[in-house]
């Protein structure tokens, strides 16, 4: 008997009982849909995150003030940014200095304890460009305003201070003096430190907040606490290798070097791991669906005894009867699997679209979903098919 005949006979068996077939395939469909949607959504959200990382660039490195062996902080030398900018492979260098003890308030009337966890940082003028953020409102510091009591707020800092737009004359109370708000930055995904800071120019920090260090016998603004480095993409690793020595040749081990995109990549991976719970739920749904298919097939075998008897009389072997019922079960499960994959893919597409992610449905999700459905159909159909094949023809033909 040809495969096409087997499939046609099984198809007739399913078409004969459409509602029943649809309901028993539904369980499989729900399980497959859950699995495909979970895998698809997590892949799409990862793709979204990775696209964001790509856009921000993976070539940003930071060198920051670390902890010395004795437990105190080890400030970076004033000359660190300049030395780093001489390294081969380095494209851009920006730096910021967190000013200890400087807090920022909406007005002098706010109790000093309500710091909102905001800090004040002196920033080099190219900082937004290097960390890959932009100005949401107003304007960034320039050569003039970096010398004046003018500040630009990080995205979160603006939110916490209750400032959602910038207008002339707007001020904040920064370490016991008024600073004018020139602008608000967009969120800086690669260096979230900046989001919670009020940024001022180095000359202003030196002049108004006495943020200064001694270099070659002269007082200069500084020191920087974080140096942001854009390296050529193919030299990121070599730059990272020498960054600590270059920043602080006297004690390289006191410098914290990191690649901020690593953290985001790790987050993307972590989001995938979180989904195992939902995958488990999908598998449970699949098992329930399998039980449903097995149940329906057993009932089907009982109901169709005379058909089995007739087919045996027409010359069907036990094997052909077995194959018929097994292929019915597989076909049922396959229908459910295909419907489930379609539903899961649709869910993923709709959700990813609203989030603006690329739609990614991993091959292992849809191929695995359909494959799992086939395997489950075969397992669920095995016992009923064996029962059908074992049925003696005389027994099957006995009128009830």
């Amino acid at each position, binding site marked *: *008997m040809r495969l096409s005949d087997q499939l046609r006979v099984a198809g007739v068996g399913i078409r004969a009982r459409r509602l029943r077939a649809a309901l028993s395939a539904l369980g499989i469909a729900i399980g497959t849909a859950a699995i495909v949607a979970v895998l698809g959504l997590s892949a799409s959200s990862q793709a979204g995150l990775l696209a964001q990382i790509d856009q921000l660039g993976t070539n940003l490195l930071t060198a920051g003030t670390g902890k010395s062996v004795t437990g105190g902080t080890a400030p970076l030398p004033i000359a660190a940014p300049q030395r780093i900018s001489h390294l081969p492979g380095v494209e851009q260098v920006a730096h910021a200095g967190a000013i200890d003890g400087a807090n920022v308030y909406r007005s002098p009337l706010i109790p000093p304890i309500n710091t909102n966890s905001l800090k004040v940082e002196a920033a080099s003028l190219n900082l937004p460009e290097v960390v890959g953020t932009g100005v949401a409102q107003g304007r960034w510091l320039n050569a003039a305003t970096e010398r004046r009591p003018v500040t630009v707020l990080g995205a979160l800092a603006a939110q916490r201070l209750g400032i959602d737009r910038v207008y002339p004359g707007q001020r904040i109370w920064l370490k016991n003096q008024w600073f004018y708000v020139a602008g608000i930055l967009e969120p800086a995904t690669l260096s979230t430190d900046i989001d919670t800071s009020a940024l001022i120019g180095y000359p202003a920090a030196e002049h108004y907040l006495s943020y200064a260090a001694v270099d070659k016998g002269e007082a200069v603004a500084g020191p920087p606490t974080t140096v942001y480095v854009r390296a050529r993409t193919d030299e990121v690793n070599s730059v990272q290798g020498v960054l600590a020595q270059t920043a602080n040749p006297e004690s390289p081990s006191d410098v914290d070097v990191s690649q901020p995109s690593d953290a985001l990549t790790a987050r993307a991976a972590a989001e995938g791991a979180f989904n195992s719970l939902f995958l488990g739920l999908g598998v449970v749904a699949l098992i329930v669906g399998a039980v449903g298919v097995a149940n329906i097939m057993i009932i089907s075998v009982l109901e169709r005894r005379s058909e089995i008897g007739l087919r045996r009389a027409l*010359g069907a072997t036990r094997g052909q009867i077995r194959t018929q019922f097994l292929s019915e079960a597989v076909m049922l499960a396959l229908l459910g699997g295909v419907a489930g994959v379609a539903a899961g893919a649709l869910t993923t597409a709709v959700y990813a679209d609203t989030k603006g992610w690329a739609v990614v449905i991993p091959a292992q999700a849809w191929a695995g979903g359909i494959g799992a459905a086939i395997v489950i159909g075969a397992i669920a159909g095995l016992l009923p098919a064996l029962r059908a094949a074992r049925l003696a023809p005389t027994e099957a033909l006995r009128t009830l």
Partner: protein
Amino acid sequence: MSERNVLELDRVTKTYGSQPPVHALRGVSFTVRSGELVSIVGPSGSGKSTLLHILGTLDRPSEGTVRIDGEDVAALTDRRLAALRARSIGFVFQQFFLSEHTTVLENVADGLLYGGAGRTERRERAAEALVRVGLGDRADFRPGKLSGGQRQRVAIARAVVGRPAIVLADEPTGNLDSRTGAAIIELLHELNAGGATIIMITHDGGLAAQTPRRLQVLDGRIVADSAARSMEGV
């Protein structure tokens, strides 16, 4: 050709169970030649159904030999037996056993499904068989749209579509009124005249009287065979 034995039974017995054993058949021997139209008649409980199952190779005898189309059934595996049924035996049942989910033509073509013919050939031969039973114009109907007599004609077409050595008809008129039943018997006669070997099992002596040869079954034995020459060895 007409002298070939298509069916030979030699001292066939069938016993069911053991405590106490039920002797359904107690030594049945007869032969059927190609082209015969035979009725096996007997009251219910006489062993007719068991005999039908053994003739149709759906069941094996406890003792004795059964030869169909020259092949000893006892020596065959389940698979070879199925092939023998597909090739050499056509069944007609009292309950028709037609599938409501396909057309009349497909039902008839299913008679060839396990014989190895391709789909196109099966459908062509099924269409011919439907013409032979007078339902050439009903090929695309669902069996449910047909009358009882027409349904039994479809079942007969399915039994003869493969031109088997033997057609076994089990109470073919049992579910039909007498007029329709008579038409079915007439059809069986026509098919027999066309060369088919037909064995009809019935409890109705009136129907049996219309066939050229009658075997009377009672308590698991053949008590009368209208063809005297076949009586040897009983």
